[in-house]
């Protein structure tokens, strides 16, 4: 049984003009345990929406998402929060670090709502991403690359089975982007986590054995329907 199984997934949004615009229409998608996969696609194709649906941040209009044997789409919001906190790690394009907190606290928050705070593990993760001497620094005291590494450590903090990465290199230069993806993959591998990364950067995608065009799996009509 795959770690992630998506079937007949649909999601549309209401446009300002009052029409329903379909953004996601995925017939079938699977990801096995500890597998790293990249999805490629231009901006605006619904990649973030797809990841948010998998993470349970958004509720689909239709279809099923099964993660680690649990049907995300059948769960209540409370149960989705719990599943996200225990099973999923999320790396955002803009990192979404909490500015008022230290690096260590940011990572601790990544585990607090799931398995519970484990300071030693949080420190180990930060040391692993090369920030062992920056535990008490706040995000604004770090470079962009360092901030991204905090986000990586935070995503792994709850010992997730699945790490979702949304354009994780979008704010990095080419050299650092490549190093960053390598680091994400290494850390995921060391922690036994599967990785689903979306990006529009073909060079990054070339680092993956499993890379797919997002457009090939997301067959939206791109037509607006009346409310």
């Amino acid at each position, binding site marked *: 049984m795959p770690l992630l199984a998506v079937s007949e997934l649909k999601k549309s949004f209401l446009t300002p003009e009052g029409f329903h615009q379909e953004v996601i229409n995925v017939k079938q998608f699977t990801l096995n345990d500890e597998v790293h996969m990249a999805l490629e696609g231009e*901006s*605006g*194709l619904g*990649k*973030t*929406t797809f990841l*948010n649906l998998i*993470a349970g*941040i*958004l509720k689909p209009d239709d279809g099923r998402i099964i993660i680690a044997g649990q049907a995300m789409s059948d769960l209540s*919001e*409370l149960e989705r*929060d*719990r599943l*996200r*906190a*225990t099973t999923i790690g*999320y790396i*955002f*394009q*803009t990192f*979404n*670090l*909490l*500015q*008022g*907190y230290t690096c260590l*606290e940011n990572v*601790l*928050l*990544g585990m*607090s*709502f*799931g398995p519970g*705070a484990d300071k030693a593990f949080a420190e180990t993760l930060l040391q692993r991403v090369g920030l062992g001497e920056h535990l008490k620094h706040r995000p604004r005291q770090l470079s962009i690359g360092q901030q991204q590494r905090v986000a990586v450590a*935070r995503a792994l903090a*709850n010992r997730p089975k699945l790490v979702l990465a*949304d*354009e994780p290199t*979008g704010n990095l230069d080419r050299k650092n982007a490549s190093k960053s993806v390598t680091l994400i993959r290494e850390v995921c591998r060391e922690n036994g986590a599967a990785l689903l990364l*979306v990006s*529009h950067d073909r060079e990054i995608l070339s680092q993956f054995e499993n890379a797919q065009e997002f457009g090939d799996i997301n067959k939206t009509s791109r037509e607006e329907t009346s409310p």
Partner: protein
Amino acid sequence: MTIWLIVFRSLRQHALSTIVTAFSVALAGGLLMSVWSIKQQAEATFTGVNAGFDAVLGARGSKLQLVLNAIFNLEASPGNLTWSDFLDVQSNPDVELAVPIAVGDNYHGYRLVGTTLDFFEKNEYAPGKKYALQPGGSWFDPRRREAVVGDFVARKMNLKAGDTFHPFHGLIFDDKNQHSETYVVVGVLKSSNTPADQVIWIPLEGIQKMSGHDPKMATEVSAVLVKLKADSALAGFQMDLMYNRQGNRLTFAWPIGTVMAELFDKIGWFDRVLTLVSYLVAIVATASILASIYNSMNERRREIAILRALGARRTTVFTCILLEAASISFLGMLAGFALYGIIFTIVAGIIRVQTGVVLDTFKFNLVMLWAPASLIALGALAGIVPAIKAYRTDVAQNLAPTS
């Protein structure tokens, strides 16, 4: 732990508004506790202070003025009564002790009270407690110009046994009104925390026959302090009837506590106004908590969305905002206790200087429980509206950008 970390960090991130709103809570709490506590303690203390007597007999006039003058050494005497009036009340079979006093002079603003040695030797100012002298002192000789100085006056005027002084005429100090008589301090009272500490005690005749006083005063007294026999249950009523209803020349102020309670009834409007002001400040403080957190909700949305993306429940972010609001009130109340201490100490100091009555800043009053509890609950209540806003925060929308 996580919730408190989030609350603490948020308070720190919004430190300025936290401090300002907490200060307004402190003002409300400090004011409320001070007004309430001072009022209750002052009322209990002043209605309980009677210098060991049950009543005061004086010239026709206000009972309150009579008590304030004879017991608390405040206000002017409403007039004099004759020596035979004193003898009459002294010989009343229901009276255990009658002590005459005479006033009309001061020393640098501290009142000189003329009395007899009975005031010190036969009277207990509180059950089982008699006035006592500090070591090396003695009571005055009624035939000499000698004085026993209250503890507070002795400290303020640096008077000790063996010192001499000239009294000044009147109850208000005026250096042009110095009497020629010289008095010798023969003793200093041990502190009794009563109005006796604020007074210089001299023989009754000293006031009566002071140079410059009306010669008529030589046979008059300002008031008579009366202690009734314990077994004469109706004595007070009978004397009240005799002096106040049947007679029209004298006033019998009895019981002293009830007369003082009238004072607090008369000035009750004042503490009601202050209490109302503190309630209004509490409302403003609550509103400011609401406004400060609510106004910061826009900048917090992204933070809330991040926390939710990390797995925080809606109820968790709701609780965080509620606890943040309650914490502002809690911090405010900590400062409120400090403010209470300052206000109470200042007011108690003024009361002590004016009357000799001591109020205890640290005496427990129920207001110290219900005022902080109410303000913290109000603070939490103020957090409900922004907490609902946090609860409803759309995670996906606030985790921009999207790809």
